[in-house]
């Protein structure tokens, strides 16, 4: 699952950070950044409702491959700037985190087959 697949699956829009050819290695859905930092997964896809710079900085610390912000939350300009600076793709999705999890799960399962 690459950035393009994520955008299509979650009805999202790539708003900052640029494209990348990395693929999803693990998925974390969380709004508490300390919880996110606890995860050891590589190439993390971070699903969150936290629309702040810290979501991007946290993603960078754990080497996440992409951040998705849900419920079509307005994204602060600084958040997009940080995403651009750190080169982390930032996607805005109208879905809830739960719906995103379901769709991502279905996509990854279908990939296995």
């Amino acid at each position, binding site marked *: 699952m690459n950035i393009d697949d994520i955008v299509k699956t979650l009805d999202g829009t790539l708003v900052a950070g640029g494209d990348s050819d990395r693929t999803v290695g693990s998925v974390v859905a969380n709004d508490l*950044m300390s919880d996110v*930092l606890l995860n050891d997964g590589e190439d993390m896809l971070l699903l969150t409702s936290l629309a702040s*710079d*810290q979501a991007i900085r946290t993603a960078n610390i754990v080497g996440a491959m992409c951040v998705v912000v849900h419920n079509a939350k307005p994204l602060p300009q600084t958040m997009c700037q940080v995403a651009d600076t750190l080169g982390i793709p930032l996607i805005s999705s109208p879905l809830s985190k739960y719906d995103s999890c379901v769709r991502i799960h279905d996509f990854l399962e279908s990939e296995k087959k």
Partner: protein
Amino acid sequence: MADGYSPKILTGGESKSDDEILAAHDKVNRVSGPGLPGTDDSPLVIMELLQRLRVRDVMRGHDIIAVSRADTMKRAQHLMKLNNISGVPVVEGRRLFGIISVNDIIKALEGGWIDDTCQQHMSTNLVVLEADMPLAFAIKFFQNYTFGRFPVLDKERNLVGIVAQRDVTRVLMHELTNEIAKLEGKATTAPTEKAKSEGTLPYYSMRQFVVVRNDLSTAGKAANEIKKMLKDAGIDNKIVRRVAVAAYELEINICIHSLGGSITFILDTEKATVIAKDRGPGIKDVEWACQDGTSTANDWIRSMGFGAGMGLANSKRVADIFDIQSKIPSGTTVMCEFILAKKA
């Protein structure tokens, strides 16, 4: 001027007795606290310099140009002209009695008493510095008073030097240049390609980052920089991530729980060290604070994605060596060390 040779130190009333001079002198030691330069959010290097350097480090202590009480004002004028200075102390032995400034000379020329003795017309309303005071005091004095120079006394009230504004500037610039050179020198000592390929890291690197209280817009920058430094040094990705997590958690902790502080990162051939130091208020129960899920965070902090009470616990979990020291109200220092394994 009945007995013009007894100086009033600071501006402590009209009395000129030695006891009162001593008492006034003691006041100098008690000038402290709010408003001193370097005690706000100035860069740490400057703050530390202002506290570390003493008045004795900047004063001119040798060959003090001075006059005695019996010397004429004309001699004082001559000395000032000859040495290009704007004031001379009036001393007997090492005891300070007064000061003759340019203003006193101008008044003497206008009033026609340039041939009178210094004792008759010297300024006795003196403000003095002590040699052991931090430089911050001297700078504050220059801000608060219009004098261009201050006599410096030792604990026995002997004159040991003179400080002019340019002395402070000269020494401060010199020390700052040294500090910057030190920081840059260490930060730019990058590993060579050969060292990287051999898996050895024969270098030492240190950087310090200021963390501002409640400024979540910049919190995390230090951790990101540290991560970049480690990656550039070719450190194993898993270790990079552990160090970055600790640095990030500690940086956020300083930002949201303390009055502000710094993150210092040291990287050498054997280990990476993150030291988080804040200026207070300190932690009441350190053991409790290091447990998972314990937090004193408010709703604002939680709304920003933090305050789950995982910060210290997470840092402890990822570090090879973890140490925390906290004192109320002076602050908390956390140190995390990471042993660098050779890259496979």
